[in-house]
């Protein structure tokens, strides 16, 4: 099995995926992204924040070349990605193998008869010789080694999420896009996922609307506002101290608190999940 190479992290690292002035409207009407430009550098761990409906999932699908933006450009390692260009088998195979997307709903990704087949789906397309070893390696890595002969549909939500992750990682992608990966996980699995993602030597962009988890998933924050603009791109700790920005993005809320006889009201985040 090939070893994954560790990459330089930071703005000096080479750009992996870029969006340039991207706009998107569903059916030509409903606006979901407005003038979004961003660059993901090799090895970066970034978090995409935004309230429900801000366009996070759409942005990931555009970065994954699944949806063509209404306007603007998607660039992967200095090569523009368009539906027409992705029809070229060589680019299609390279892009799909190197840029992986974990869908929010793991059921959308599972269709093979067993967990083994599910994880082996990608390598079989590549025709690599050591499929069995790769599948066992990644199944053990994510903790589903005991379920290889079971149908993936019979697993719990968290186990399905892990199978999906193994099915993507077995191809050793360079960029991993994750859409609300903790949504179907219990607290123990969430802790495991945070540590696991941190140990992966790949560029990651993870969406969440959970501010308390965000600093654990990356050190750079990208925030989509309710008006579908990218309203913040910078260090996550600075964002967490900027209550005005967080309020504008609808990532914090205000409600009354009662402490004995004292009642007061302020803006804050709840550590839910």
């Amino acid at each position, binding site marked *: 099995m090939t070893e994954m190479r560790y990459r330089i992290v930071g703005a000096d690292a080479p750009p992996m995926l870029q969006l340039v002035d991207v706009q998107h409207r569903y059916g030509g009407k409903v606006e979901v992204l407005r003038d979004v430009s961003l660059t993901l550098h090799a090895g970066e761990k970034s978090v995409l924040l935004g309230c429900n409906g801000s366009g996070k999932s759409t942005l990931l699908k555009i970065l994954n070349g699944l949806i063509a933006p209404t306007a603007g450009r998607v660039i992967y390692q200095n090569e523009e990605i368009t539906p027409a260009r992705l029809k070229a088998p060589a680019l299609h195979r390279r892009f799909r193998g190197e840029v992986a997307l974990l869908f929010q709903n793991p059921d959308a990704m599972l269709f093979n008869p067993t967990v083994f087949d599910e994880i082996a789906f990608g390598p079989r397309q590549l025709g690599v010789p050591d499929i069995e070893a790769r599948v066992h390696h990644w199944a053990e890595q994510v903790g589903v080694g005991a379920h290889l002969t079971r149908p993936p*549909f019979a697993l719990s939500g968290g186990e399905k999420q892990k199978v999906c992750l193994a099915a993507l990682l077995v191809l050793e992608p360079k960029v991993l896009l994750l859409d609300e990966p903790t949504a179907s996980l219990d607290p123990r699995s969430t802790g495991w996922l945070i540590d696991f993602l941190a140990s992966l030597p790949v560029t990651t962009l993870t969406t969440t609307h959970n501010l308390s988890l965000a600093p654990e998933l990356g050190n750079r924050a990208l925030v989509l506002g309710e008006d579908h603009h990218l309203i913040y791109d910078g260090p996550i700790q600075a964002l967490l101290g900027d209550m005005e920005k967080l309020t504008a993005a609808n990532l914090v809320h205000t409600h009354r608190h009662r402490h004995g006889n004292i009642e007061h009201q302020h803006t804050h985040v709840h550590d839910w999940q």
Partner: protein
Amino acid sequence: MNRDRAALFAYLAAVLAASWLHDPVWLAAGLAVTLLAAGGAASSLLRRSVLTVLAFNSVISLSYAALAWMQHIMPWETLLRINLRVVLLTSLTFLFIARVNLFRALDFSQNLTYALGLAYSQALTFRRAHEDFRLALASRSLKRPRLIDRYRASAAAAAWFIEKALHAATQSAQALRSRGFFHD
């Protein structure tokens, strides 16, 4: 009567007429009128309708043609009638859905509006989920998926939809019962 309700009654009348008419000439005329009503969207409406019914109608048509051949019957008029009628009904329905606000059309009945609301919310949820299933397969495919993979993906999606539909229907019924909708 509002415009949408009038369109609903016109649509129902057109469906009844298309079901009663047997002469292929009249059915073809009905299809022509429907496409004229679609204006600039006529070609895409016809293409969408034909593609929608293609698999089902092909099986029916071929089966009937084989039976007619064994019984020494000329099948052409019947085949023309069946296919024209199905394409006409499908085109009418697509045009109706695209042009008419069903909520305004049914606003005379609270019960019908409730039922439409439930069906509509389910349809939107399933449409989004269906798109995710399609995109997930595309995202994981390094080359064109084999037929068996597409069958498996479709079967997995169908099983998921059935399970979700049953769950959602139970939830909806419980929610309506909780709000006093049923009087049993």
